[in-house]
């Protein structure tokens, strides 16, 4: 087992290096520069834009810039944003709590809906409940979040005037009032994202359950006279949850990466909106850091999933 984990870890290092090289090259080759705004401003002499490019090393050859980045990164220096001249780690840490709160809540909501609905639908396949759940799930994941987000805003903010649609990181008040305000402003984005996730996850849980429910040992358990609830919860769900747990593990990086579209619609200052504004302003160090962190998380959770498999099914780690 220990050897297996070590082997997987050693594979992760070169793959991360490879990912960083590809990311960096693509970013460096992408057109545009961070000081484009200065170009049409008659008040700024063109020499300044050139001096800034030179100062921030934008004119160096790509391989040299990559090596600089790698060396700095190895020492824990994430570089600084061209746009705000702030350190990149400060920027990311400022945004992370909001992302975790909103996207995390959405994932929890998705799980809270998907597992019971999926399990219940699988125990009564093709019943009315199953049909309705399926239809709703299909509608749910065919509607993109930018559409439902706008719909929610029009209904709950504009028409009914119940909820604010601009997410504020600076909520006034203290104690219970503060908590209530925080919940209130998160309702719409969490619903939009959560329902979207729940829809696809419900389908997944249902099919995983159906795969197991037909197996012989389930029939045996029933034949022994065990109650329906015991059979479903203790025998079926336990096995059906293995692929579901993997799916969840692999989705955790997405929680850290934020939801670009939803964050943009509701002005949530999360990682996703940081990424999009940095891409728009060609702020390479920030884009590089965010995407690289994301890559690390994906690799890391893949590793966890692999280890988890090895633990659930020892035959995998022996191979």
């Amino acid at each position, binding site marked *: 087992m220990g050897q297996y984990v070590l082997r997987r870890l050693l594979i992760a290092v070169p793959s991360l290096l490879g990912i960083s090289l590809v990311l960096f090259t693509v970013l460096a080759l992408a057109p545009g520069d961070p000081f*484009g705004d200065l*170009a*049409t401003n008659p008040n700024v002499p063109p020499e300044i834009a050139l001096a800034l490019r030179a100062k921030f090393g934008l004119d160096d050859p790509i391989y040299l810039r990559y090596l600089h980045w790698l060396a700095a990164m190895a020492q824990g220096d994430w570089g600084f944003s061209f*746009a705000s001249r702030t350190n990149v780690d400060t920027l990311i840490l400022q945004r992370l709590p909001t992302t975790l709160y909103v996207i995390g809540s959405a994932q929890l909501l998705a799980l809270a809906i998907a597992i019971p609905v999926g399990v219940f639908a699988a125990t009564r396949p093709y019943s009315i409940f199953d049909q309705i759940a399926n239809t709703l799930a299909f509608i749910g994941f065919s509607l993109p979040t930018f559409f439902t987000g706008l719909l929610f805003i029009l209904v709950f903010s*504009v028409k009914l005037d119940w909820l604010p649609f601009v997410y504020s990181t*600076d909520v006034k008040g203290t104690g219970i009032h503060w908590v209530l305000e925080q919940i209130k402003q998160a309702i719409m984005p969490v619903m939009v994202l959560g329902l979207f996730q729940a829809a696809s996850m419900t389908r997944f849980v249902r099919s995983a359950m159906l795969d197991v429910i037909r197996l012989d040992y389930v029939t045996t358990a029933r034949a022994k006279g065990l109650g329906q609830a015991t059979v479903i919860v203790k025998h079926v769900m336990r096995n059906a949850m293995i692929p579901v747990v993997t799916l969840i593990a692999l989705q955790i990086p997405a929680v850290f990466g934020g939801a670009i579209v939803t964050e943009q619609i509701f002005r949530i200052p999360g990682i996703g909106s*940081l990424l999009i*504004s940095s891409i728009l302003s060609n702020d390479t160090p920030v884009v590089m850091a965010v995407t690289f962190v994301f890559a690390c998380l994906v690799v890391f959770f893949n590793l966890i999933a692999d280890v988890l498999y090895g633990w659930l099914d020892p035959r995998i780690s022996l191979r």
Partner: protein
Amino acid sequence: MLDTELRTMINEVKDGRMDRRGFIQRMIALGLTAPMATQILAVGGVAMAQSPAQYMPTKRGGGGPLKLLWWQGPTLLNPHFATGTKDQDASRIFYEPLASWDLDGHLNPILAAEIPSIQNGGLAADAKSVTWKLKPGVKWHDGKPFTADDVVFNWEYATDPATAAVSSGAFGDATVEKVDDLTVRILFKVPTPFWANAFVGAYGCIIPKHLFAEYKGGKSREAPNNLKPVGTGAYKFVEFKPGDLIRGEINPDYHMANRPYFDTIELKGGGDAVSAARAIIQTGEYDYAWNMQVEDEVLLRLEKGGKGKTIYAVGGDIEFIAVNSTDPNTEVDGERSSMKTKHPILSDIRVRKALALLIDRNAVQKVIYGRAGRTTSNYLNGPAPFVSKNTSWEFSIEKASKLLDDAGWKPGADGIREKDGKKLKLLYQTSINGPRQKTQAIVKQACQKAGIDVELKSVVASVFFSSDVANPDTYAHFYADLEMFQIPMTQPDPVLLMRRYHSRYVATKENKWQGSNFPRWVNKEYDAAVDAAETEVDPVKRAALYIKCNDLMWQEGVMIPVMHRVKVGATANALRPVMSGWANDLDNLQDWYREATG
């Protein structure tokens, strides 16, 4: 009655979008007599020196919070590094210049005790120096006094090449010296009629010497106060999250009486313009949003809600089509659009004139810009003394066709004109932006009717406007026949706007396409007029020179003006912002207040 609102209405009368009677009726409804209303109109028509906006509150503070929404979130708070209006606005909440521009493009003192003039001895008669007297008793937010040393330091800081400050352009090759603790003198090498560039407006904000002295030049990025501004402004710094949020609180020691009105200020960033308009006009969650680049149709629909409205300010921003003087399709010494070539089609003035006749500005204004644009035949659209009355535009497919006939372009079998076996085909590029693509379509349609085949091209804005030397799609490379975009007029003087097309600044491979004359237009008469205007001290002669420059562009048809663009903001009904076409939205923040009843 709000000053800005009144001006918007006066402008509407001028443009014929509101008739005089309608204007006077609205004035009477507000309690004015008819003669008074007529007088307002007369004064507005002349649009000469007006006092700055009236400020009503009689005590400091008590106005509650002011909530601003900027759909591009500010990312830094040092005015010397500000790469766009968003950052300039953010810095301006805390820092101040010596003076800023008011609604009509006149100077309004902020940190200066008075505006220098020949009468008060501030301006030298030869326009080679200007002396600023500073307001006494001004304190930085940390309690230290503001003095001439701070002003001189800002010049040293900005002009140090290692700092790479974007504000350095405001100083040119001027030097700044301290006369006494409350007086500074700016010395110019040549007569400089536009002396109010340094320490004025967005790039003129002054940072404290005692906090930045150690961070001049190469160490400029390390200054802790880059993120925690300590200024002299109406609001003190509380919190900053780049791209997301800026918070400030009232400065109880502010140097202007009864100001500011609001107790706290919050500027939220991010999102898009349409939803920002919605948050102000429709739901009223926020008080003010800048730069409403939203189609007028959408704004009109939102305004039916009634919680807010749009406001307008006229400056000199111009949307235009530039005509390439060189050949983009021939390579000379590895360079396209080389100065050694002539454009095979567009070097004929009759073709350029025909193109100018094919821009249906009325349609563009009506269908696309609405209240945010005015039709114009001038490249230089303000301030009033500099605007030419010698030009006019018309849309006429017949006249254009006639000109093309005369030039020898005969319609071919497919309706496209030909000459010597060559098709009349032009490539027309611009940046990706809703209104621009729609304008392109309107122009293309008219050209087609006149027998010109126009191919449209659109480039992502971040590429089009970049200074990237290696990218062939930037506006400065101009590897097309026509291109369209906007040049903002950042101060109420034409010097920088008109200097751009001097033949000295042609963008070529040699200067890495950093020259501002991208149509690569060379006209000796224009060059001479621009050079003369830059050092002409007599304001009347100077205005005449710039009008001549504008008229030359028009006669030559190298810069075809499309739309004089007006700044648009969204505001809560009760808020009284001060918006000037000659300044950034927050340049007169200290004068903003809210009326008790909307």
